């Protein structure tokens, strides 16, 4: 049984259909990546899974409970979390408060403290700035904070929306290492990435969206070799 099961999901903004009949599943302990051009509906898919945009049709089950109509906070209580597009750091809170906010549904104070220290250990840029307002952080530092904040929720499934955006090449590598490490520790991941090559390398399964519909899915190795995907999304990146 899959951890997350999205079946025939449709979403629209007003009269514009953003997703049509999208089905996808993430099994426990798996990394699944969703690829697609700008505007294909990737972010919409993640937001719909979280419940931040309402589903017009179809269903979402997570950990055996039907969440299609549940509010985001109910879904997060079940172990879903999203690192949103554009980071969405809270700039009027300090770095530390941002991290604590990630854990706002949890009660286990001691563990929260311990995990926060682990996150500081991992992202040293954040340590010096822990009591500064998050507005001071550089673009990349904000991205670290957003990921750290999501980790603080102690999720079962982490959804990441273009996490490598604005990160230096070295840090992008570290990020993918981190994702793999968390995955090894049992976290399931749903990953949306522009950096298609890297995403396909770490994923166990991949789905391609085009204009809100699933056009391909399956084994990432096979997809990486698929000429259609080569043309559409790997384009410049793999030419070198």
């Amino acid at each position, binding site marked *: 049984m899959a951890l997350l099961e999205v079946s025939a999901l449709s979403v629209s903004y007003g009269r514009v259909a953003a997703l049509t009949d999208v089905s996808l599943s993430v099994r426990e302990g798996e990394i699944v990546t969703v690829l697609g*051009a*700008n*505007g294909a509906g990737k972010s919409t898919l993640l937001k719909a899974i979280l419940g931040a945009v309402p589903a017009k049709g179809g269903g979402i089950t997570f950990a055996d409970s039907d969440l299609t109509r549940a509010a985001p906070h109910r879904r997060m209580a079940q172990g879903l979390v999203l690192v949103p597009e*554009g980071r969405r750091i809270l700039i009027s809170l300090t770095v530390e408060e941002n991290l604590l906010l990630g854990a706002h549904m949890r009660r286990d104070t001691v563990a929260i403290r311990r995990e926060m220290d682990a996150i500081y250990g991992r992202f040293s*840029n954040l340590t*010096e*700035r822990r009591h*500064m307002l998050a507005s*001071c*952080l*550089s*673009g*990349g*530092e904000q*991205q*670290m904070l957003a990921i750290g904040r999501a980790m603080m929720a102690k999720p079962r499934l982490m959804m990441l929306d*273009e996490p490598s*955006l*604005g*990160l*230096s*090449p*070295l*840090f*992008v*590598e570290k990020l993918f290492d981190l994702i793999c490490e968390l995955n090894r520790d049992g976290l399931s991941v749903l990953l949306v990435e*522009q950096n298609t090559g890297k995403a396909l390398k770490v994923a166990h399964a991949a789905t391609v969206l085009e204009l809100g519909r699933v056009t391909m899915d399956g084994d990432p190795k096979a997809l990486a070799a698929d000429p259609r995907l080569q043309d559409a*999304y*790997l*384009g*410049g*990146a793999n030419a*070198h």
Partner: protein
Amino acid sequence: MSTALEISALSKSFAGVQAIRDLSFTVPKGVSTALIGPNGAGKTTVFNMVSGVYGVDAGRITVNGVDVTGMPSRRRIGTGVARSFQNVRLMPHLSVLENLLVGQHVRASSLAALLTPYRLIPNHRWKREARAALEESGLGRWADETVSALPYGVRKRIDLVRATLAGASLLMLDEPAAGLNPSETNALRDHLKALMAKGTTLLVVEHDMHFVESICQNVVVLNFGEKIAEGPLSRVRQDPRVREAYIGSDGEA
């Protein structure tokens, strides 16, 4: 050869954190330059100081031979330097064309210009110019759209056109290719090349090394606010310090 931008002994700290430390480099006219470095190295901070968003703690900034160090931010664009933003900043209440018209301000700022009822005059010079600039960059069809409805890639390039309409000879671009798909990146590259051909000098912050390679002749590498390397990308890339701090082990991005 004259310089488009000269930065000497620049320093800046925020609440005790030294963001830029004794930084000097120059951007000669016609030599497009990339400013690269790990996250938090201080790249955007340099842009902010050049455009006047932040004051400097120490050091000097010269644009096209004019010392702008203490100049109010709004007057700097008049010396020929314009910038784009890491997070695109178009004015959402205005149409694309109106955004561009605001960009023309430096060249139409007299009282008479301010009080000309250009909207009543069909095909007024300003509107013509703005449309032409849009056409030229292949964005003509978006002219009358509301900005907030446009695709990200298009918005990024409108930001660029707006900066060029100010007549700037030095363009500072903060991560122009981030978030763009390959075809949009290509369109952007062509656009920039066309600008360079017309004599614009670029100073680019960008993490996509292929992109940097294709448009910049020179690279300045920052780490912790200090310059750690400078030169053509092919050479800088081999520098062990750069590899360690920025590019990483596989040498490719």
